[in-house]
């Protein structure tokens, strides 16, 4: 009931001194609160927490499609940890995430900053080009043709430039690199960066201009600091998303060659297809643990800088609203 009282307190603070609500009124408020919360709570329980809890339970059993289910303790976990393919899949996922962040994460930030420098009209057209919400399945299939070793676009460019014939996705050493590259043209985050930049008042840049700051200094002292929280959030999302990468390798290489691009989630999928539910859930839980660990480490590592203003609680924000 803590949320409930917090909300009540916040509204009380907002309204100033108010006679204490009568019991019937507060009961009605509470009922209203639950009516509004119900849809979200139900959906979350059914599609979020129920599967999570069940998989957690299943991972300690020998669940199969039919037959009795018996509790087997850590057997599935043991099996999974000793499975060499699991180690490989985790390695692939981690390398994929690192490569993708190193190679593609900065690009939309730069694009957004540069777009802001362009004339309005140009910017609008470029936005349309860069940030068009492309279907990633369609794009993936197109890229499969680009990478085709016999008649692909990239192969003809490579041979045209006088290189040897390239293996691209067929090389187990290069496959992850080539899988990450298409991420360069999918600019979902770019739009968010652009929106952040557009919310910076022009007077900031004008003040800096009057003081003689050049282009890069303005970026460094105004644009980037304003984007910082958004960048950190997008980084978190990128790490989480990439560690769960599934559809690109699935569509472009089907995990090949020889499992060199089989990510952790793909392996979960493979095991599920073999109807080994216990193993699949155990592997999912392992991946879940890894992601939680990475997120925790990131939260710890990228603390807000010590100079940053102290975080304000909701109640503080509400009560301070008046004195601007």
């Amino acid at each position: 009931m803590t949320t409930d009282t917090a909300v009540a307190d916040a509204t009380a603070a907002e309204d100033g001194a108010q006679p204490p609500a009568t019991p019937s009124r507060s009961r009605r408020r509470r009922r209203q609160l639950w009516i509004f919360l119900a849809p979200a709570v139900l959906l979350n329980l059914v599609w979020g927490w129920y599967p999570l809890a069940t998989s957690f339970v299943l991972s300690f059993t020998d669940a199969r499609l039919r037959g009795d289910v018996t509790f087997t303790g850590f057997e599935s976990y043991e099996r999974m940890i000793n499975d060499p393919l699991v180690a490989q899949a985790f390695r692939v996922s981690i390398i994929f995430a690192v490569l993708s962040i190193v190679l593609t994460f900065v690009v939309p930030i730069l694009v957004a900053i540069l777009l802001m420098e362009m004339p309005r009209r140009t910017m609008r057209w470029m936005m349309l080009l860069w940030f068009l919400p492309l279907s990633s399945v369609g794009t993936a299939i197109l890229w499969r043709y680009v990478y085709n070793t016999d008649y692909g676009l990239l192969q003809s460019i490579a041979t045209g430039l006088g290189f040897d014939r390239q293996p691209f996705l067929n090389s187990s050493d290069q496959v992850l690199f080539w899988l990450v590259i298409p991420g360069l043209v999918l600019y979902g985050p770019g739009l968010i960066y652009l929106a952040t930049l557009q919310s910076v008042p022009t007077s900031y840049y004008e003040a800096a201009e009057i003081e003689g700051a050049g282009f890069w200094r303005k970026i460094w002292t105004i644009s980037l600091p304003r984007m910082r929280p958004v960048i950190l959030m997008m980084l978190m999302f990128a790490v989480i998303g990439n560690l769960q990468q599934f559809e690109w390798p699935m569509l472009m290489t089907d995990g090949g060659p020889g499992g060199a691009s089989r990510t952790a989630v793909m392996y979960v999928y493979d095991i599920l297809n073999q109807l080994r539910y216990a193993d699949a859930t155990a592997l999912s839980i392992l991946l879940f643990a890894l992601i939680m660990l990475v997120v925790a480490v990131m939260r710890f590592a990228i603390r807000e800088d010590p100079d940053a203003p102290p975080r304000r609680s909701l109640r503080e924000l509400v009560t301070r609203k008046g004195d601007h």
Partner: protein
Amino acid sequence: MRIRLADVTKRYLREGSLRVASDEPPALDHISLDIADGETVSVVGPSGCGKSTLLRLVAGLETADCGTVHYDEHDVADVAPQDRGIGMVFQDYALYPTMKGAGNLKYYFDVHRRTEDEARARAKEIADIMGVGFELLLGQQTTTLSGGEQQRVAIARCIVRDPTLFLMDEPIVNLDAKLRESTRMEMAKLLKRYGITTMFVTHDQQEAVFMGDRIALMRAGRVVQIGTFDELYYSPVNLFVATFFGSRPLAVLPATVADRTVRFGEAAWPLPAVLADRLEPGPVRIGVRPEAWRFAGAESGGGARMAVDRIESVPAERLTLAHGTVSGARVTVVAPAGTAGDVLWLTPDWEAATFFAADGEHALHTPGAPEFF
């Protein structure tokens, strides 16, 4: 530093069109201004009149389509904003994010590769000038400061590098009323101390009067009139200027001049000789300020009959105001204390009345500032 603008015109490109839309009025329309060294000029006018554009143009953040801007004897058309030696204070303060107050003051010295010592010495100097508690603000992250505190830092950032021209764009409009009062007092003190030429943009007439040695009143991209408050108040060039100043509305009475008398509704008054000689017979409009009426007592026949709607007393100013109509025109008058009743008999004080053309808004006769001021 003396600032001179000669015939400056500026049009904005309309959003999405490549050509200048010729039917759109220019943001600045043939503006000429001459600001003396050390003078503070308030630029005031309704929103959208071009006052901020004017300021930004003087700063070099906008370029004029035609006309020239001179700083002393130099045409600054090709001088970048950072080389003009200006300090600008913005409406939203525009303090650099993620920097403490001190960092904001140091920014200029960083950009210009001056020494750390110089920056620190200057900041110290400014902190002494800015007064009590200012040094505390420098140690804080700017986002944690209140509006008034941010504004003080913004002003300090502006004076820390010894500008030769201050440009202020509604610097205190975002503060609450009490703080606005004390801040403008502080700013006026600073401006006096430094004697730097200043342009102060505001939409608040009181602020304009308080801050400015002279006031430039703008409308639709033009400077309608520039002068001291007395000049604008007692010798307005047109009805717009006359109605803009004064916290209580000017009464505008449509009247007719004929045979050295002026006729308004049922009332008629012989005109004083000075006015009678000057005014052509025909329709005019008379502007009378609330304090420029004479009362002929409650007896009928003494002037124009005012139907009183409401008597308002303003204790803080020891005033009694009567609101009502005279022959259909809305009138507010400063009435003697204790006035009551539904009817007042009024006569304009001809020495303080302004005459405007009936068909235009230009002034035909203005009273000029009273002698005893």
